[in-house]
């Protein structure tokens, strides 16, 4: 091969192209390579040092949930034809992936009752930040009003990106477990470009989404677009109403498109994706028709080939970075095609009735769990709002120590709200999935009760 190239050695290939001063003159300081079985054993050993949902009965949620991933999802995700190609730049040989995107977009549109969906973005919290950026380029207004019921990581991601483009993030407190309607209305004004709430919110409470959206439209009406930003014709000058939705309860909850929400985003992990210590999963991003040409990310569209056969292509690419460069609606390039495939396969597996049945099951079990836990001494509800898959309680004992005790007994009781909320230092957030049965919930109530009792009495702590 060297002779064909016309060089004497591999070294020469590099000597002729890279200046000596920037060549690494030593081997990389990394361990030597290993054979396949050694690597497997090492990775298995690391896995053994984690306590996964396989090892304990977990009620941890707070943004990612231990739903069952059906076997068909694993089988399809492992297929070479889905696993190993890249973005379908050559549609003639990518019809499978493109049609999956089209089907995924249809499923997300149905779920959200919104006209348009892209083919997915990275994950949930950054999707919230992306929605705020869409509002920014749509109306140019500086203020972003966000409920403290939105996932703390989403609010953090929003602040990180908004600060760069001059967005001013204003947080609205919760009252009785939901976004305080008075504080919400008074935070929103004519300079508000986006408002963001979560459904259900981080404490598990179902928000009055329609009321929040209506208040946002009323309070933000009438402001002019700032100079330097071109608002598209027909783009309303009221704030863009963004809802960050959990997709699982959307079989039973009034969808964003029927609540006056303009852009619905959310974490897609619950839909057929593994926990994977936080990723990869996917974010969904759906909107009303008005925002189609400002959407970030890939979009698949239907068309015909030269023989009149139905086919699919990436479309509306003039929004995207590889065409528009600095004028693109987003810098996003790769989406989460494989994870979105898992999402649409999962939704098809659940099916039309299945999503509703799953929602009803979780509604009943979550209510049962809240009742069971709050009848334990030292445990009370943090709020009384309707809950559909997750709820918050207050403990009359140090939460971290209660959690540690429960974990020693093989149960992870949930998320210590103090990790993210100073105002809920005694709070515990408990999530229910179809994998947590009544018997599991009863066991949680027993173990949690014992742990709270032990930790609420000084002597018990050392027993």
């Amino acid at each position, binding site marked *: 091969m*060297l002779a064909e190239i016309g060089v004497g050695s591999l070294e020469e290939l590099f000597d002729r192209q890279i200046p000596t001063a920037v060549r690494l003159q030593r081997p990389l300081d990394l361990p030597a390579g290993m054979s396949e079985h050694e*690597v497997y054993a090492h990775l298995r050993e690391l896995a053994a040092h984690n306590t996964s949902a396989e090892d304990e009965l977990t009620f941890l949620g707070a943004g990612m949930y231990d739903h069952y991933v059906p076997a068909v999802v694993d089988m399809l995700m492992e297929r070479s034809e889905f696993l190993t190609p890249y973005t379908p730049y050559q549609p003639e040989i990518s019809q499978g992936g493109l049609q999956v995107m089209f089907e995924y977009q249809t499923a997300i549109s149905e779920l959200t009752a919104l006209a348009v*969906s892209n083919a997915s973005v990275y994950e949930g919290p950054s999707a919230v930040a992306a929605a705020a950026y869409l509002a920014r380029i749509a109306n140019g207004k500086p203020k972003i009003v966000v409920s403290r019921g939105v996932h703390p990581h989403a609010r953090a991601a929003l602040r990180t990106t908004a600060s760069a483009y001059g967005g001013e993030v204003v947080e609205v407190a919760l009252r009785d477990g939901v976004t305080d309607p008075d504080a919400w209305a008074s935070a929103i004004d004519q300079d508000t470009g986006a408002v963001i709430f979560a459904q259900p919110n981080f404490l598990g409470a179902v928000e009055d989404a329609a009321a929040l959206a209506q208040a946002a439209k009323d309070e933000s009406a009438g402001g002019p677009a700032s100079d330097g930003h071109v608002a598209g014709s027909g783009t309303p000058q009221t704030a863009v109403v963004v809802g960050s939705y959990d997709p699982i309860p959307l079989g039973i909850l009034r969808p964003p498109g029927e609540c006056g929400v303009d852009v619905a985003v959310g974490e897609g992990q619950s839909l057929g994706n593994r*926990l994977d*210590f936080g990723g990869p999963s996917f974010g969904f991003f759906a909107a009303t028709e008005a925002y189609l040409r400002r959407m970030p990310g890939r979009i698949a569209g239907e068309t015909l080939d030269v023989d009149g056969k139905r086919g699919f292509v990436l479309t509306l690419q003039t929004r995207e970075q590889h065409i528009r460069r600095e004028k693109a609606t987003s810098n996003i390039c790769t989406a989460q095609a494989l994870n979105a495939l898992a999402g649409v396969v999962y939704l098809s597996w659940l099916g039309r009735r299945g999503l509703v049945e799953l929602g009803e099951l979780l509604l009943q079990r979550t209510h049962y769990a809240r009742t069971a836990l709050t009848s334990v001494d030292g445990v009370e509800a943090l709020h009384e709002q309707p809950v559909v898959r997750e709820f918050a309680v207050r403990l009359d004992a140090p939460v971290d120590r209660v959690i540690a005790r429960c974990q020693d007994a093989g149960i992870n009781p949930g998320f210590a709200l103090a990790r993210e909320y100073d105002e809920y230092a005694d709070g515990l957030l408990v999530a229910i999935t179809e994998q947590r049965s009544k018997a599991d919930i009863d066991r949680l109530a027993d173990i949690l009760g014992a742990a709270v009792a032990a930790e609420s009495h000084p002597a018990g702590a050392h027993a």
Partner: protein
Amino acid sequence: MSDTLTIFEKGAPGRRAFTCPTLDVPEVDGLLPEAFRRGTEPRLPEVSEPELVRHYVNLSKRNFDLDSGFYPLGSCTMKHNPRLHERVAALPGHARLHPLQTPARAQGALELMWNLERALAEVAGLPHVSLQPSAGSHGELAGVLLTRAFHADRGDVRTKVLTPDTAHGTNPATVTMAGYEVVKLGTNPDGGIDLDDLRAKADEDVACLMLTNPNTLGVFDHNIEEIAEIVHEVGATLYYDGANLNAIMGISRPGDMGFDIVHFNLHKSFTQPHGGGGPGSGPIAVADRIEPFLPRPVIVRGRDGTFDLDDERPKSIGKLRGFQGNYGCFVRSYAYIRSLGAEGLRDASETAVLNANYLLARLRSLGVADELPLAFGELCMHEFVLSGAPMKRDLQIRTLDLAKRLLDHGFHPPTVYFPLLVDEALLIEPTETETRETLDAFAEAIAEILREAAEDPSIAREAPYTTPVRRLDEAGAAKRPVIRQAL
């Protein structure tokens, strides 16, 4: 045509795959106020499991994939994805680990991430790593936000970011999102940055220069030390787009070239499967002076050797996303690095460069270079750019036609019409995991298409013929967008 019906057009009312668990708690009415309830259920598919499986397996057969054939898509590094990585990533200790598990009970994951950070730092030649960004574009955003925070911390307000005209589109798009103005730099006859243009534009308003090296022409910019000096002279940072890192692992390090911030594409150099367009992962490595601003949390190792997540980072740019990043990708890339080791990584890059130069030489000796000359230079790094301009003039076929005809030969075409500064560009990256026989066959296919075009250019112009569909009406799709199944 039944083979293009969507899943929504199949099935029948009442059909299903899922069996819901029996309600095992007392049923209570009125838990959800009517006003909050959904009126009509979402019209999801109604199919049985066999139908579901058959539908998606049949769809998969309408995809070309790396496991089936050569995929020399330039700047995408379509190297083999070892199956071991899928096996270890699926171990329940990794796959079913909740991201909010107490760090004391996620020590294996934190150790893996710590080890991966150390390995990436060594490859980059920069001491600190954050694994958080979700993809290359996200890593770029992190890098420009870090630059902004670095300048702001010193009370320095800057407005511009320099990007060469060879840059990936994500670079300028990122600059805009991060609130800076894009200033473009020209390219010199060698394919590197025009130094005079850089000197003229590098001033105290410049926050950063974003550079890919080797760049998207497959050219290693041999002026890199001087470029770094000019950029640092005006107090700006130098950003390394790691899309082309596969050319230099263990051979040359961005940190040693003078770069302050680097992003990696774990889905390119480090074998995370591309998944049909994601997931990816875009860790960043940075110099000491950038470290205080890294995304939070960071992984720390205590004196006793245990690992923890540190969220108390007052100067941090904050978070870019939820949790700790795409851990599943970390597992795969870590497995890759441990499989190859130091020597193996260097060998991978050497072979990638060897393969690219061999393919280029084969094309030359087959006479292809007359119609498709190398755009810049004599040799190349891990990829190279041909110009289809002579082919278009002499044979009346465009680069697009050549690409479409390659489909009939069973190859995925190279990247086409990028980089933008090369007329009728064809960007070819074979990677190290292809055999000489494959490279020979690909070169022969290109030569054959040119011979065929000399006789009858209409054959290529109307290609492909053997694919599930033929050329598609993309303009029509954009004009009247149909982006969901009508129900």
